[in-house]
């Protein structure tokens, strides 16, 4: 399944609604219309909406990562991704890198946390096959906030003197242009992901998606051209009409596709629904320490595990 044909119907590089240019050349289906249940996709269809070469934003491992969609991207054989971790990643990035889907990784860090180094990321940087754009957490958050606001760049304190700045030719240190007494300040260009992907506990029948207090997912959705979501379940209600739920709800207008995938964040955790499976992560860390080991994991857990996870 890896290496299968990419999504079809992806020739124009502008959005039919607004005519805006995208980062890659592809078309995201019109999304500014009310979702209803009959438009739910399956996870393979969502994966087809991520074109080769896309700037793809993914949440950190502790914040609602759509792991089944990640696996579907591997199965679809997506190539040349520029993966943006918001602001760090682990298992999700390591799977995509090990499966050969990533050309550029942009992150403040890639690690399996208590399970140690992310093995395929580490190997790919060391052998030069992966281009790593090192960043730092608040720089990624701020650059996405620039896109949220539709402004071209964002200033950020600190960081000056870090070698990160030296190797980021898209960043610029300037004298405080408004003379507010801050001396030099760093400017970061806005980051506008082509596609963001998230998993969430709940959506409603209008396509509103509830993520609770995981507000980095709001930032990602606001900043990206379109967001694809997998959810545990769909409720026959309107989440935006309930003030308690609305505070944690991303409105449907940001989404380009939605699929119901119970357990879609596993082996990572999903807030109160289920915890991270550390035994799985540790076993992965050991097995994926070689490319052969990773390939065995890939075959067993992703390419052959397809039927079990399909919704």
């Amino acid at each position, binding site marked *: 399944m890896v290496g299968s044909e990419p999504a079809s119907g992806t020739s124009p590089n502008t959005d039919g609604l607004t005519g805006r240019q995208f980062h890659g050349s592809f078309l995201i289906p019109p999304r500014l219309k009310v979702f209803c249940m009959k438009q739910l996709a399956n996870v393979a269809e969502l994966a087809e909406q991520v074109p080769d070469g896309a700037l793809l934003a993914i949440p950190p491992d502790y914040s609602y990562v759509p792991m089944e969609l990640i696996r579907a991207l591997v199965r679809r054989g997506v190539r040349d991704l520029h993966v943006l971790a918001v602001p760090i990643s682990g298992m999700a990035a390591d799977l995509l890198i090990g499966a050969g889907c990533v050309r550029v990784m942009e992150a403040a860090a890639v690690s399996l946390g208590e399970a140690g180094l992310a093995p395929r990321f580490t190997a790919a940087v060391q052998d030069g096959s992966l281009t790593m754009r090192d960043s*730092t957490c608040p720089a990624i958050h701020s650059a996405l906030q620039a896109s949220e606001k539709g402004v071209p760049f964002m200033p950020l304190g600190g960081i000056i003197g870090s070698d990160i700045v030296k190797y980021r030719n898209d960043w610029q240190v300037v004298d405080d242009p408004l003379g507010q007494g*801050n001396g030099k300040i760093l400017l970061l260009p806005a980051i506008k992901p082509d596609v963001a992907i998230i998993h969430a506990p709940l959506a409603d029948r209008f396509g509103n998606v509830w993520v609770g*207090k995981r507000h980095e997912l709001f930032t990602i959705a606001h900043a990206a051209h379109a967001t694809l979501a997998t959810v545990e379940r769909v409720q026959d209600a309107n989440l935006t009409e309930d003030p308690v739920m609305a505070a944690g709800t991303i409105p449907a207008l940001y989404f380009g596709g939605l699929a119901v995938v119970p357990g879609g964040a596993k082996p990572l955790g999903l807030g109160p629904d289920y*915890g991270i499976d550390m035994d799985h992560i540790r076993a992965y860390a050991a097995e994926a320490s070689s490319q052969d080991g990773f390939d065995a994991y890939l075959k067993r857990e992703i390419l052959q595990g397809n039927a079990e996870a399909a919704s």
Partner: protein
Amino acid sequence: MSDAYSEEEFLICAVRRLLPARGNGAIGAASPIPGSAALLQRELTGGAFTVSMIHGTTNNPFTDGGRELFDCAGQGRVDVFFLGGVQIDGSANLNLVGTGEYPSLDRRFPGSFGSAYMYFTVPNVILFRPEHSRRVFVDQVDFISAPGTSPDDVRRPGGPRALVTGLCIMSFDRARGRFRLDSVHPGHGVEEVRDNTGFDFDLADEVAVTPEPDPAHLDILRARIGREVAGTYPDFAARVLGFQAEAGG
């Protein structure tokens, strides 16, 4: 070390002594020992010292996503933070990226996380690195994730205060840009510190022996802190503090 406590417990208590009696401590990625120290200090100060575990399912007060910690720090709402490094040099420059020549490096590590920002914004950054060797404490880091000091034309309310290792505690003089050896842990000596440090440092007028943990503090640590730290570091809570989370926790 003594039979009465583990090395981790000793370090937790040593870090705890460096914390202020009130203020707000934040705990980032991969910091179970500093996290336990901060939670112990919260317990001992009756909550006057507060703790925010930014990746935790518990002890995580933030409700506005990953950026909130950094926005808080930028405003001066975080008083204490902890950082480590693959390499740390005598100017307190930190390297969390890797060793060798960037970008391919000989050994790649996870990355800088938020260090390049927190080091500038948090007034009391405590550096923590149990491995005290010339591999870690180098004359000059291979990659500066976050610089120890900054020129006058860069606004910098924050920076390093102290360094805690498996051998000793040093303080950092920001004006001089140099570390000073304050205390050496029981069973270790000044020459051992020197032999295992790749940079030059100053000596306190009288280099002390780092105090051993107070048994009452060890009791609190084992009885109450394991549960608190498990929401962020379940493996550590189980291994070091004997706390087993329920399945799925």
